[in-house]
């Protein structure tokens, strides 16, 4: 049956927006095992679930919005892998008394590396783009949330240390780029 073009355009628009939300499936499928790992290994289910939900919400919003936000979310998932996995690997370590700083240290070191990688990538790929801020904010937010899933094991200090590490790791490459332009 023939329908007015405006009605058809509205229907197509709704389908497109729905499709954009559904395009987050891949990112969510990647994030799901990360949350599972955190729930199983970190022994803080509430914090892990909270970080997981926040991560899912950011990934969904970024995929729906698209453009630099979606690209930033993908980069953030990669940059957050270090701070997620390295602290979890310290589960295998046994401290012989006293205060063990291995997990928080792992959080900071991995975040520094992840942040540096993110900064370098951003410097090379989105240097002159006006979308740079959207890309970076999303990438850092996703990396921080992914990292939090692992750094939950070291408590609040681990998460704060990881966030500082990410910021410090990203800053030099970006500062250099800004200075060069």
């Amino acid at each position, binding site marked *: *049956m*023939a*329908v007015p*073009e405006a009605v*058809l*355009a509205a*229907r*197509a*628009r709704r*389908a*497109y927006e*729905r*499709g*954009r939300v*559904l*395009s987050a499936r891949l990112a969510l499928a990647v994030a799901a095992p990360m949350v599972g790992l955190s729930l199983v290994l970190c022994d803080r289910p509430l914090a892990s679930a909270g970080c997981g939900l926040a991560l899912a919400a950011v990934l969904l919003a970024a*995929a729906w*919005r*698209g*453009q630099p*936000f*979606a690209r930033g979310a993908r980069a953030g998932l990669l940059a957050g892998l270090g701070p997620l996995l390295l602290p979890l690997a310290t589960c295998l370590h046994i401290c012989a008394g006293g205060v063990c700083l291995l997990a928080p240290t792992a959080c900071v070191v991995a975040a520094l590396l992840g942040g540096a990688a993110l900064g370098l990538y951003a410097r090379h790929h989105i240097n002159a783009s006006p979308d740079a801020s959207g890309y970076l904010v999303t990438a850092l937010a996703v990396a921080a949330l992914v990292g939090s899933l692992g750094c939950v094991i070291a408590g609040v200090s681990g998460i704060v240390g990881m966030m500082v590490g990410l910021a410090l790791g990203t800053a030099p490459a970006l500062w250099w780029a800004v200075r060069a332009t």
Partner: protein
Amino acid sequence: MDRARREALQRDLARLADGDREAFHPVFVCLWPLLRGFAGRYLPAPDAEDAAQEALVKVFARAAVFDARRDALSWTLGIAAYEIKTVRRRRQRRREDGEPCVETGDGRAGPEALAMAREREEAVASALALLDPADAATLRAYAAGDPTPVSGATFRKRVQRALARLRLAWRIDHGRP
């Protein structure tokens, strides 16, 4: 579709896949007539319109996952072709179930169906007028079920040839088989 429009579609669909909403309108304006024409080549008018609409909506629903390395036109027409196939299969099932294709609820053909049937008859008559008189007479005799002056096999062959010429004339005149 010319090369420039094809490249524009490729560019706009890639932008749409990336999330650039400003590319929505150019893609819509380019695709709607294209899909309507494409469906019109393989389906009768009301079904073609439905299939084109469904195909268009599906193209936009999947636009977010369109891979910009692929050819946009082929990708779009692939979706439309699948939709046309689905509509054809549905029509085939309807015919097998003995359901009337276009009828009103009380069993009589509606005014739209009558007008379409009249339009179709006129189009067939004008296509027949383009044929050789012998071909036209063969097809009329075949349609009316009149007794054949020649043997069955010869008559079938003549009908086959006349139909092929009619299809050709129809395609030239109406742009669809």
